[in-house]
């Protein structure tokens, strides 16, 4: 009682309202009972906190007429759409739901158009070097691929031979070049402007006859112009190519280095033709000869998936292909390397590629960022247990995500395991309005926001996922204790590879590492679910590769331990990386996934206490002070538990506290 009276006195001093002689009843009522801010001001505060806007003048007047704000008024506010929008903002901040700086962006898969010719869709990124001989090079915009034998369309008839002998496609139907140019990175090309063709240039003595095969027709704004191209004498790599090799007609067919040194990059440059040679001798793979840019033509195909048009579009013949595998090597086209494989293409309706203006990429970023926020919104709208946001299997797709999952889009850019079998994902067309979301039930492994691509990409490693979980839902951060002792640099424990044991690191990592195992079946820096059926705990093939020194195992064992740095590592070769250094009890975390983590944390009560603290901070604009925790935390937490973790009731309780109704 004495303590209680002391509180009251301090309250009076704090408010500067009363002297020491005021009777206790008056003191209690005037100073330490709630002294609410004026009605209109309190209304403004509530509206701004709950609806993110002030009341309108009509709403002020209606409340003034009523004379007070009742619990039913607050509950009514929390039924409005503006409240849900406001809470989406709260959860967006809590989950840091924006993957725009986290998703890989690969411009190589973007299809651009140019202003000339038939304006085909084409990739012009780094992979063009593998397809056409030089970075940034598209196809021939003027020659239809399957009309390559049309003599009228031949670009370099003097070097290509008879049009009728040209091959538009190989035996598998893979498009072959229809025109070539010498690469100005290795050649110096000078225009022969007075001539109409290379043969004409020879007849007009503008071009020595022996260089006829080193003449190519180049496109400009005025049409085709002959150019004489000779190895660049200003570059050390090509200046040494001084010797000319002639054919039987006395025409130069190659420039050769007469005395090639070991360090010289090129010993010869052959004339360009339309022929391709197998890359590294592998049949089914193609490489353009050095110094030659070899372009395929264009074709008409169905419009890309991001287009609402039904009219066919022009596209480069390579990109327009839709093969699942390379027909010669049987290598999958649904890998990162599809663009450098001449036989793959962008797939049906260009599913593997994107629009050149980034709209597809930006739409994916927005959709992936939004899904976790929608999950929290759905829990709130249904007045469900708030912690369903961590465990529910409910998911959402809009047209962008649905078509991504169903059509296996985004190859080489995004790596997201569909939450269900592809055909079971709701069918929403890509062109549907982006705000049109469809709810569905994700697979067994799904666990609220914690397994969404938005969360997995935003927090790309197991450690960052743990850190964010502790920060957002347990209000804890990983910092060493104040009395932590950094080990001596010479201490042998610094060489411990297991951070959960390494001295100094173990202050935090003894918790982080086993907790991170809850995401052990999710890839790092991607959003792939490593299903046990496809990614078993131990893979003998990977172990054998590791023992044979093939640490990549031809790209098939990226998720497995392939190198050992200590005894534990040696014993774990061929194991899924998540199992390295894990104890048998940790392995249950891998199996249980993020849902097990959420369920365990619920048992500790920390999730509830943290949620109360976060809502308090959101509404009062400052963290709960230590003494306030004594006064409010337990009661608010118990109320939150009693209402089955109903977030709206918690908000109602917080805005009903005396602290909320004061401003200081």
């Amino acid at each position: 009682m004495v303590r209680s009276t002391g509180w009251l006195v301090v309250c009076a001093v704090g408010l500067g309202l009363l002297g020491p002689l005021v009777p206790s009843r008056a003191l209690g009522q005037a100073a330490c009972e709630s002294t609410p801010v004026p009605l209109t001001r309190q209304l403004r505060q509530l509206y701004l906190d709950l609806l993110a806007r002030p009341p309108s003048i009509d709403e002020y007047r209606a409340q003034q007429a009523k004379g007070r704000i009742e619990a039913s008024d607050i509950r009514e506010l929390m039924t409005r759409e503006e409240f849900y929008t406001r809470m989406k903002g709260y959860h967006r901040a809590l989950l840091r739901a924006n993957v725009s700086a986290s998703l890989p962006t690969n411009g190589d898969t973007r299809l651009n158009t140019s202003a000339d010719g038939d304006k085909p869709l084409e990739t012009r990124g780094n992979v063009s070097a593998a397809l056409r001989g030089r970075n940034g090079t598209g196809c021939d915009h003027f020659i239809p691929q399957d009309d390559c034998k049309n003599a009228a369309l031949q670009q370099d008839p003097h070097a290509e031979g008879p049009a009728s002998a040209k091959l538009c496609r190989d035996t598998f139907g893979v498009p072959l070049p229809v025109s070539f140019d010498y690469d100005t990175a290795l050649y110096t090309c000078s225009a022969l402007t007075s001539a109409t063709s290379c043969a004409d240039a020879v007849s007009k003595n503008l071009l020595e006859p022996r260089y006829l095969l080193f003449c190519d027709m180049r496109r400009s704004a005025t049409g085709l112009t002959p150019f004489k191209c000779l190895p660049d004498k200003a570059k050390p790599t090509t200046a040494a190519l001084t010797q000319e090799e002639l054919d039987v007609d006395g025409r130069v067919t190659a420039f050769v280095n007469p005395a090639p040194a070991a360090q010289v990059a090129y010993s010869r440059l052959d004339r360009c033709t339309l022929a391709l040679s197998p890359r590294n001798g592998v049949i089914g793979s193609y490489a353009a000869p050095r110094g030659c840019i070899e372009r395929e033509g264009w074709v008409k195909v169905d419009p890309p998936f991001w287009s609402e048009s039904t009219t066919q579009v022009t596209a480069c013949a390579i990109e327009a292909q839709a093969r699942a595998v390379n027909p010669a090597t049987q290598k999958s086209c649904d890998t990162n390397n599809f663009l450098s494989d001449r036989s793959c293409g962008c797939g049906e309706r260009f599913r593997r590629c994107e629009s050149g203006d980034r709209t597809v990429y930006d739409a994916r970023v927005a959709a992936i960022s939004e899904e976790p926020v929608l999950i929290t919104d759905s829990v709130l709208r249904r007045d469900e247990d708030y912690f369903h946001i961590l465990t529910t299997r409910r998911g959402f797709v809009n047209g962008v995500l649905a078509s991504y999952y169903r059509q296996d889009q985004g190859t080489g850019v995004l790596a997201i395991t569909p939450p269900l079998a592809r055909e079971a994902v709701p069918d929403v067309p890509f062109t549907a309005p982006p705000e049109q979301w469809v709810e569905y039930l994700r697979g067994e492994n799904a666990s609220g926001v914690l397994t969404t691509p938005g969360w997995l990409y935003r927090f790309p490693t197991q450690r960052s996922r743990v850190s964010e979980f502790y920060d957002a839902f347990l209000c804890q951060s990983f910092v060493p204790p104040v009395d932590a002792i950094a080990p001596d640099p010479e201490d042998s424990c610094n060489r411990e590879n297991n951070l959960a044991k390494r001295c100094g690191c173990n202050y935090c990592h003894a918790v982080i590492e086993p907790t991170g195992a809850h995401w052990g079946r999710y890839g790092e820096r991607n959003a792939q679910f490593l299903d046990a059926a496809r990614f078993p705990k131990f893979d003998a093939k990977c172990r054998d590769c590791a023992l044979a020194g093939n640490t990549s195992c031809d790209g098939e064992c990226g998720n497995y331990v392939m190198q050992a740095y200590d005894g534990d590592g040696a014993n774990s070769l061929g194991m899924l990386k998540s199992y390295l250094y894990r104890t048998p009890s940790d392995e249950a975390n891998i199996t249980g996934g993020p849902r097990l983590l959420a369920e365990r944390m619920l048992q500790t009560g920390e999730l509830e206490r943290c949620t109360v603290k976060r809502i308090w901070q959101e509404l009062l604009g400052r963290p709960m002070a230590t003494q306030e925790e004594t006064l409010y935390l337990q009661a608010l937490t118990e109320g939150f538990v009693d209402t089955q973790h109903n977030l709206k009731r918690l908000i109602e309780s917080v805005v009903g506290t005396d602290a909320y109704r004061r401003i200081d």
Partner: protein
Amino acid sequence: MRSTSASCLLALLWVACSSQEPDALPAAARPAQLEPVPVDHPPIAALPDPELSGGHVGRAPRRLTTAQLKASIRVTTGRDWSQIDNLAASLGRADYALVNAEATETNLVFAKFLDDGAREVCLATADADLKQTDAALRILSREVPANLDLTAIDESTLQKNLTYLSIRFWGQPLTGDELASWSSTFKNIAVRAKAAKKPREAWGSICVALMTDARFVTY
């Protein structure tokens, strides 16, 4: 005044902390007592000691977030500030990709941009009001008769309109000396606006003043 407060404080502390039994003292020397709260008294929600709570016992007043500011401008003036989305990052909006926390500092950058925004929306609103003959549909001069000479508004009407505006913008009515001061300010502006033949600047200026006031940008 300060010494009186200090005396009161000392007396209070003495009462709160003294271990001496007050009844043992002579009645004349006995200080006023704080009697125990009776059993039938309604429960008292104790507030924390501000000194142990970072100086707070209630909400921390804070600046509107960018989203709240945008909505507040729309609700109070009926129109949007056209540049707010372009300036959102400078006004403190977090993107949660690279900037993880909304900044709500009331710094000079915020003040400068808000001043620009207030001019834009307030003058446009005042313009629209001048063309609106139905008083109920006007935003800034709802309580003022239409087509009335700005300098001829009577004090009562003027104060009524200013009170309406202060509730609309701040949720707090202007009263007393402050109301008189705002009324006087309006009269001065109205004379100048009339002389300059820019009637929109009369209520427009009041709107700018209301919108750049701390009571608008904080809550």
